[in-house]
C-alpha cells in the first residue's frame, strides 16, 4: 500500500535546479536508502518533503493527504519528520527536555516526559537523559536527534546521516533499533548515509539522485550494477563499493 507518494517534485534556487521532476512512491514499512554524490539534492529532497523548503513544482502525498507547501509542524503532525544532518538539538536544554518537546506533539506534559525517556532508552541514551544537549558527543547528538524524531510518533522517518560519526559497532546497534522499530510499528524509513556498508545492509531499496534528478530506483544489488549510477559515482570512493 502506497504511503508516501512524490510526483514531479522540483526545487529551483534562481537559475540552479536543486531537484528536477523527482517522482517515487514508498510503501508503509519500507526501508529505503537515498544515495547520490555530494550536492545531488538528498538533503534538499528531505527538506522539501517535510516542508522546510517550498517546492517550485510537484506534489507530496502522505497517506493520500497532500502535504507539499505545508509547514513542518503540520507535516510532523501528519506523521512525517526528519533528523538534521549536522544535528540540531536545542543546545541549552537537557537531552530529555529536547525529546519531551517533540513528545508534546501528541501527549500532555507528564506523559510526554515518560515517552521521552522511552525514546531515549530505545536509542541507548537512557544514561545521559539529563545531560545538557550541548555537552554530548557527536554520535550521542545524532542518536538524540533520532530519539527526538521518534518522540513525534512518525509513520515516515527521514534520517539524514545519523550514522556519520558512529563506530561500526554503534552503527550495527542503530540499524538493529531501526529494524526493530519497523517490525514493531511498521515505521517507514528513508535513510541518507555515506557509509555504503550501512546503507547496503539496511535498505531494501535504493533511490539514487544525481544533479537533482532521480536516476535509479530499485533493489540495491540491481541499482549497484546500473550504468548511470556507476557513472555518477565514477572516480569517487563509493564506485568501488557499489
Amino acid at each position, binding site marked *: 500500500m502506497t504511503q508516501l507518494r512524490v510526483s514531479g517534485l522540483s526545487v529551483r534556487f534562481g537559475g540552479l535546479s536543486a531537484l528536477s521532476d523527482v517522482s517515487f512512491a514508498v510503501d508503509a514499512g519500507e526501508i529505503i536508502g537515498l544515495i547520490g554524490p555530494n550536492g545531488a539534492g538528498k538533503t534538499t529532497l528531505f527538506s522539501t518533503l*517535510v*516542508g*522546510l523548503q517550498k517546492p517550485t513544482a510537484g506534489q507530496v502525498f502522505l497517506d493520500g493527504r497532500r502535504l507539499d507547501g505545508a*509547514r*513542518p*509542524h503540520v507535516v*510532523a*503532525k501528519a506523521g512525517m*519528520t*526528519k533528523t*538534521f544532518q549536522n544535528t*540540531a*538539538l*536545542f*543546545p*541549552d*536544554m537537557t537531552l530529555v*527536555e529536547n525529546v*519531551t*518537546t*517533540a513528545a*508534546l*506533539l*501528541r501527549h500532555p*506534559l507528564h506523559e510526554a516526559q515518560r515517552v521521552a525517556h522511552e525514546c531515549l532508552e530505545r536509542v541507548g541514551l537512557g544514561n545521559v537523559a539529563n545531560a545538557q544537549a550541548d555537552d554530548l558527543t557527536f554520535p550521542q547528538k545524532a542518536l538524540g536527534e533520532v530519539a*527526538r*524524531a521518534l*518522540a*513525534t510518533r512518525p509513520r515516515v522517518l527521514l534520517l539524514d546521516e545519523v550514522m556519520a560519526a558512529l563506530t561500526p559497532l554503534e552503527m550495527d546497534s542503530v540499524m538493529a533499533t531501526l529494524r526493530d522499530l519497523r517490525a514493531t510499528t511498521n515505521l517507514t524509513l528513508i535513510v541518507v548515509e555515506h557509509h555504503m556498508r550501512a546503507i547496503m545492509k539496511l535498505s531494501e531499496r535504493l533511490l539514487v539522485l544525481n544533479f537533482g534528478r532521480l536516476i535509479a530506483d530499485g533493489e540495491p544489488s540491481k541499482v549497484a550494477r546500473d550504468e548511470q549510477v556507476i557513472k555518477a559515482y565514477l572516480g569517487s570512493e563509493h564506485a568501488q563499493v557499489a
Partner: protein
Amino acid sequence: MKRSIISIAALALALLVFGEMLNPTGYAIRVLCLVVLAACLGQSWNIVGGLANQISLGHAAFFGIGAYTSTILQVRWGLSPWLGMPMGMLLAALMALLLSIPTMRLKGPYFALATLAFGEACRIVATSWPSMTGGPQGISIPFLGNSWAMLQFRGAGSYLPVLVGLLSVTSIVFALMSSGRMGYYLRAIRENEDAAEMAGVNTLKVKLIGSMVSAALTAAAGVLFAQFTFFFDPDSVFSVAGISIRAALIAIVGGVGTLTGPVIGALVVVLIEEVLSAYLSNRAAGVAPFTFGVVLILIVLLRPRGLASILPALRGVGAKQ
C-alpha cells in the same frame, strides 16, 4: 511553578512592607515605585525577549499605546483607567498581531530593527495627530483628588500596591509561560526554530501568543505610568532609549529569561540612575550617563548571564559551609 508563586508572593509582600516604612509622599517611595514599574516593563519584555529570544527594541510602542488609550478615554469621556487599562491592553495585543505579520519570520537583528522602526512610527503618529493625542505638547490627566475609582493619588505611596499588583501578575504570567508546554515551546524556538518546527511546534503561533501577551502587559505598565506621572508626551512614552531599550536592558542586566532577572535589573538600573543623577549631575556634563554606561558594560562583561546568576552561586557558597 509552586516555588515561583511563593517567590512572587514573598517579593510582593517585601515590597509592600518596605513601602509602608517610607514616607508616603517622599522621594524614596517615588524611586521605589519607579523600580517596580521598571520591573513590570522588564518582565513583560522578558516573556518574548527572554524566553523566545525575540529581541524587541520597540516595546515603547505598546507602553505608549497603553498610556494614550487609557488617558484619552479618561480625558475625553471620563472613563476610569481601570476600564481604559484592558482596552489599552487589547489594542496593544492587536498591534502586536499586526506587527507580527511582517516581522514574525525575521530573526535576530532584523527583527530588532523592524520593532525599533515600529516604535518610532508610533511616536511619529502620536506627535502628528494633535486632535487625538495632544501632539508634541503632550497630554495631561486632570487631578480630581485621591480616588481609587479613577486610580489617582496625591502621594506616590498609594500607587505602590497597584504597581506591585501588576508586577505580581506579570511575573505569574511569565512563570506560567516559562513552565509547562509553552515553556518547552518557547525555549525550543529560542534555540532552533527549524528544529522546533520539525519537532511539531507551531512556531509562528507560539511566538504570536507570546508577543501579544507581552504587548498587553507592557501596555498595562504604560497605563500605570500615565496615572503615576499625570503628564506625558510622545517623546516620553514612545522613547527608544527611555522605554524600548530600557525594557531590554533591565532584563539583560538582571538575567534574560529568568523570573528574578527583571526585578534585580530594575532595582540596579533605576538605583544607579538615581544615585548618579543625584551625585554626579552637577559635575561636568555627561559624567552621569558616562558612569552609567561604564557600570552597565562591567555588569554585562562580568556577569554575561545577568545579575540573577549570582543568586545560585551564593546559594552554592552557603551550602558548602
